[in-house]
């Protein structure tokens, strides 16, 4: 992968730098290991931080910041404010989100603080006591406090309370207080926040403001979401969830025009070459002593900002510092890229001096960090199931207490902290927690597996069920209610796919002509046919099969969807891979659904059998390509965790189709002239693509093929394998899907996404959904 500027770090500084670079039209990739500090703080900007830059730079950066936040809908305003922290400590603030400004502790009027009774993260009593002591000392009228009943149990997650407080409580008497303060859980996204605040203000007839809670602090989460959404709009690609190792730039790579960043994704690492790198990894790098020997003044390609700056004031470094330094670093990096070989003209910190390198610490030591939960709650803030009753990954994880390294959850015989919390089975397995986890080891953020019930056990046999449904077409609609399937979502199983047949019924398309499936695409021409092996035939050969020992061949792992539900996808994939020696593995389940449903033994059986098929080819140097992100994730992330022999080898060799095509770097022929109306697409990034830290390779491919692609806001479709079919999970799935449906409905264009389950969901809600491989195959056939 290449880009002009790589930004490392997903805290405030990293996001700001990426946003500024994106605005300037620089091709930027943001690499983050997880959430920065934003879920822990309100995103206020404080004064008094020693900024080594001139006043005009600071003013320029802050003006830009105010303008940006206005555009993002979380408008910041300025003022000399004294705002409380979650514990009521007063803090001086100069720039704060509009929703928090009302909490100015020195305002003359009395205020009513109202909170839902039983909200464990809102420290109302402590806060009010501190605030009133402060106000009494200044002869200001005290603030009053009043809980209102909200039916809270006590340990609801912040997103769940946010959902609850979206509708104002009717039982709250506000007397004649001119303003009302509420816990800062009014909406998880800027949009929800606006709606919630409006609703409260209408209901109470007076302005409301927010007071901070313990982490996850939703104003900070809101800011993070807004900034990440903005990056998506700007076309800044985001590689999330894995640590990166920065090559400081040996002369050879510098001459080759880039700094190498190695991203330690699951299975294998990927190399990103960037013209310049903005380092915003906090003090991880600085602590290793490494950055001090590479300051800005040396004029190389590294632009540290925020706490990564060796000249930064000692911790804690505030948000003002992060915003200003990131803004300036972004401009310097952009100038560096524009100037080519010249040194950056951007404003360097006045005190920047190359510190003498006492030793040369190895980079990996400097940047790598531990493997365990920090208790930061970032995962809870991003968990799509958390607003709907799931106790949150952190709660489940701590209960599971998997502990050190990458140990699998074990069952302890008896004794102290237990293993399951109630409703642990509501975990979707989307792994958004993994991408948000600042520790981000697969063992760290992984919630415990649920214990499967009889239904879960049954649904773990996905290939068997698909086969059965194919043989007895009437079975699915009739059996659905008996099996506890959700009646609405199961509709998608019998809906018609683009191949023109109901997906379940198309499971064994022995008479299926792939040519028809891809609308006369080249797949048929190149590959002849799908191979009409009997059901269950493990491996069928493509045309170029049978070259044992040949390196560089591909094993195409079709996955359940392409095998059973939509064979035309298989044809399209094969068409895209026409130039490579190809073997196809179909009718094989990767075991991910069984694993997600907690049926571990079956998952192991599937995994072993699949590994047996793949290993010989992998040992010959072949790569495994799959159009299904869940299969790729299972092979790269789950199998090594299961400790299966050969899993690491296969993980190294596994590559998702989009990633493969992008990295293959074959020029794509634009199928459409720009501006043609019919080529507009909305792209949804599936959770499992995100969880592999892949970024959005398909977007690049589709854009290269001439499609106009708009990336949809990050969300989960709520389907998650068979999760969405189970009636016991229908309330969670439905709540998540409603949000997803809103986003999809807002776009009139067809939705492209590579995850079969997301596709099913898209079709269930009545929109057109296509796998990008289909679209590419079509574009090739029509335009090529």
């Amino acid at each position, binding site marked *: 992968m290449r880009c002009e500027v790589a930004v490392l770090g997903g805290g405030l500084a990293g996001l700001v730098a990426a946003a500024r670079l994106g605005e300037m039209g620089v091709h930027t990739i943001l690499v983050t290991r997880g959430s920065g500090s934003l879920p822990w703080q309100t995103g206020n900007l404080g004064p008094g931080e020693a900024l080594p830059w001139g006043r005009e730079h600071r003013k320029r950066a802050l003006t830009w910041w105010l303008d940006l936040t206005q555009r993002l809908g979380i408008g910041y305003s300025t003022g000399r404010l004294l705002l409380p922290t979650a514990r009521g400590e007063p803090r001086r603030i100069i720039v704060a989100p509009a929703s928090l400004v009302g909490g100015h502790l020195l305002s003359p009027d009395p205020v009513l603080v109202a909170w839902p009774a039983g909200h464990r993260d809102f420290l109302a009593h402590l806060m009010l006591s501190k605030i009133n002591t402060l106000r009494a000392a200044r002869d200001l009228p005290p603030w009053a406090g009043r809980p209102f009943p909200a039916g809270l149990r006590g340990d609801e997650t912040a997103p769940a309370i946010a959902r609850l407080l979206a509708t104002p409580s009717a039982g709250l008497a506000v007397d004649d207080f001119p303003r009302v303060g509420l816990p800062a859980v009014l909406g998880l996204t800027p949009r929800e926040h606006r709606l919630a605040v409006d609703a409260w203000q209408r209901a109470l007839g007076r302005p409301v403001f927010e007071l901070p809670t313990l982490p996850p602090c939703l104003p900070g989460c809101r800011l993070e979401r807004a900034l990440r959404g903005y990056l998506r709009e700007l076309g800044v690609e985001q590689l999330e969830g894995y640590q990166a190792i920065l090559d400081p730039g040996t002369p050879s790579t510098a001459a080759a025009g880039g700094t190498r960043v190695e991203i330690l994704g699951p299975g294998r690492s990927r190399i990103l070459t960037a013209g310049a790198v903005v380092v915003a990894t906090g003090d991880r790098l600085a602590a290793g002593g490494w950055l001090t020997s590479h300051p800005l003044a040396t004029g190389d390609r590294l632009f540290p900002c925020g706490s990564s700056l060796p000249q930064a004031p000692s911790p804690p470094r505030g948000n003002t510092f992060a915003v200003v330094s990131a803004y300036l670093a972004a401009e310097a990096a952009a100038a560096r890229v524009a100037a080519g070989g010249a040194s950056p003209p951007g404003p360097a910190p006045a005190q920047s001096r190359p510190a003498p390198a006492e030793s040369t610490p190895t980079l990996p030591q400097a940047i790598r960090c531990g493997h*365990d939960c920090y208790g930061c709650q970032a995962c809870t803030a991003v968990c799509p199931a958390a607003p709907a009753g799931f106790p949150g990954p952190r709660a489940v994880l701590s209960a599971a207490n998997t502990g050190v390294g990458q140990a699998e959850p074990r069952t302890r015989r008896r004794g102290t902290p237990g293993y399951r919390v109630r409703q642990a089975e509501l975990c979707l397995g989307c792994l958004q927690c993994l991408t948000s986890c600042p520790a981000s080891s697969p063992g760290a953020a992984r919630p415990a597996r649920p214990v499967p019930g009889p239904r879960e056990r049954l649904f773990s046999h996905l290939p068997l069920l698909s086969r059965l449904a194919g043989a007895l077409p009437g079975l699915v609609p009739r059996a659905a209610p008996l099996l506890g399937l959700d009646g609405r979502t199961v509709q998608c199983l019998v809906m018609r796919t683009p191949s023109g047949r109901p997906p379940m019924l198309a499971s064994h398309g022995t008479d299926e002509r792939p040519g028809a499936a891809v609308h006369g695409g080249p797949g048929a021409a190149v590959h002849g046919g799908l191979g009409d092996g009997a059901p269950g035939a493990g491996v069928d050969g493509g045309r170029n099969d049978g070259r044992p020992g040949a390196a560089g061949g591909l094993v195409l792992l079709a996955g359940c969807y392409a095998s059973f539900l939509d064979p035309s996808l298989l044809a399209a994939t094969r068409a895209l891979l026409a130039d490579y020696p190809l073997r196809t593995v179909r009718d094989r389940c990767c075991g991910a659904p069984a694993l997600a449903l907690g049926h571990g033994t079956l998952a192991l059986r599937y995994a072993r059998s699949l590994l047996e098929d793949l290993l010989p080819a992998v040992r010959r140097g072949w790569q495994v390509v799959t159009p299904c992100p869940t299969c790729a994730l299972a092979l790269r992330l789950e199998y090594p965790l299961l400790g299966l022999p050969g899993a690491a080898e296969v993980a190294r060799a596994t590559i998702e189709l989009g990633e493969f095509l992008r990295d293959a770097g074959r020029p794509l022929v634009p199928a459409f002239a720009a501006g043609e109306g019919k080529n507009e697409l909305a792209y949804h990034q599936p959770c499992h693509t995100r969880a592999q830290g892949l970024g959005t390779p398909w977007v690049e491919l589709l854009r290269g093929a001439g499609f106009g692609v708009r990336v949809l806001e990050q969300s989960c479709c709520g389907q998650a394998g068979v999760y969405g079919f189970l009636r016991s999970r229908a309330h969670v799935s439905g709540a998540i899907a409603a949000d997803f449906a809103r986003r999809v409905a807002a776009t009139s264009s067809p939705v492209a996404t590579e995850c079969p389950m997301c596709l099913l969901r898209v079709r269930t809600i009545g929109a057109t959904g296509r796998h990008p491989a289909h679209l590419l195959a079509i574009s090739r056939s029509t335009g090529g």
Partner: protein
Amino acid sequence: MSAVKGAGVPGAGYDVVVVGGGILGLGVLWDLSLRGIRALLLEKAFPGAGTSGRFHGLLHSGGRYAVSDPALAAECARENRRLRHLAGWCVDARWGLFLRLPGDDPAYEAVWREACLRAGIPARPLPPAALGRLVPHLDDVRAAYRVPDASIDGFSLLEALRLDACRRGACVLLGASVTAMEVTGGRISGLLIQGPDGPRELHPKVVVNAAGTGAGPLAALAGLDLPLLLQQGTMAVYPGRPLDCVLNRLRPPADGDIIVPSASTLLAGTTAVTVTGREAAQPAPGQDEIELVRRQAAELLPALGRCRVLRVYAGVRVLPHPVTWPAGGSRESRAIPRDALLVDHSRDGVRGLITVVGGKFTTFRAVAEQVADLVVSHLGAGTRSPSARTALPPPPWLHHRPALLHPPRTSAGGWVLCDCERVTAARVLAAWDPEQGLDGLRRRVRLGMGVCQGALCLPRAAELLVGAGLLDAGTAACQLADCLRERWRGLAPLGTQGASRTATTFFHALAPREASTLAL
């Protein structure tokens, strides 16, 4: 309950005063109360504020001392069995392993087996296959033996001793220290103490000095010279609990060769660094000690090499000073005898003062029995101790333990207040003791000992107590700041390096302002 809280303590009426609320002091108090002797215990901070609250929580099987000190090993083995029987509720991980790693001397193994056999320690060799099944995380192990080592919840045991002793008529006065000791006619005639409610004079017949690191200064008050050797041991806490057994290295006792699971964490330790009395008052782990413990722990359990350290802490062993050793003792620090030092100061011309220091946590009952025997002989009443046969009831809040697994949602307070240790609000309320404050909750239900180090659960608990009217907001804020500062003490030595960075930032966001100015 008034006796438990130490309210309304009469100035007189207690024949025996025990100074020091560690395991020895409380053990002696309990033993005396079992014999029907009413005693008063003075503790200057809280139970377990010294070494008894800062050890690794290992209930020795005796294996560690089988070669170096067979008598202590045999006593450990005996007391281990007894404690499991009488107070089984405080035992957490119930077994342990001795592992010989590639670098260890194979000859020691045979010597050790022989010694274990003699000391009555059941050490069973484990074949590699069984070992792999029981503990899947080990790397290259040359030999493994299963022993009845265990981990123990020290704070709960201390509280249980206190509660049971108070129930039987003893009294515990927290926040009280001895300021002067009056010796007339070769015997102790009076004590001047500074109690929580002002100075007070006591006239006991016998004073037991079990003040741990403070034993020397206390003896000095009576004009006695008690030379003690203070040795600091550093321990590292790792988050998570991938094992259920204690790990020991099968080699002569050395630094950093024990790993002990404790609730949801693993403890690794320890070191031995001689410190002065001033340093012992607030033991602080040194960087080289932390590094040593981490390195050794990673050798024993390789997974720990990839794991961050949650916090570090140090405790101080009190050992008899070389001048009090029997002649011919080795001067190497690990070779100092580890059994308790019991001195009847009648020999120094002060009747009625008994000093007891050192010893292992495991053998506290046996030592306390000896001390109480001595006390009884001073008082002239010759009852035998029933402590070897008396079951110790758990403190009441431990009955809430089943709620760990499935908190009852319907009952009030069944919600989880601390996600790391799965503590429910109901448990917090049950364990609340205004005398010990928020910090007492940490010792009683492990609030703040988990992954978040109290950054989330301690404020929540404070809010809960204020909301319930059990604590006023101002005091709560002070106690919260104190607790967080204390938590910070264990995080600060780890610096901003590597993994602890997040915890650091986390604390900056939540902890009192002083945290940011502490040494970094």
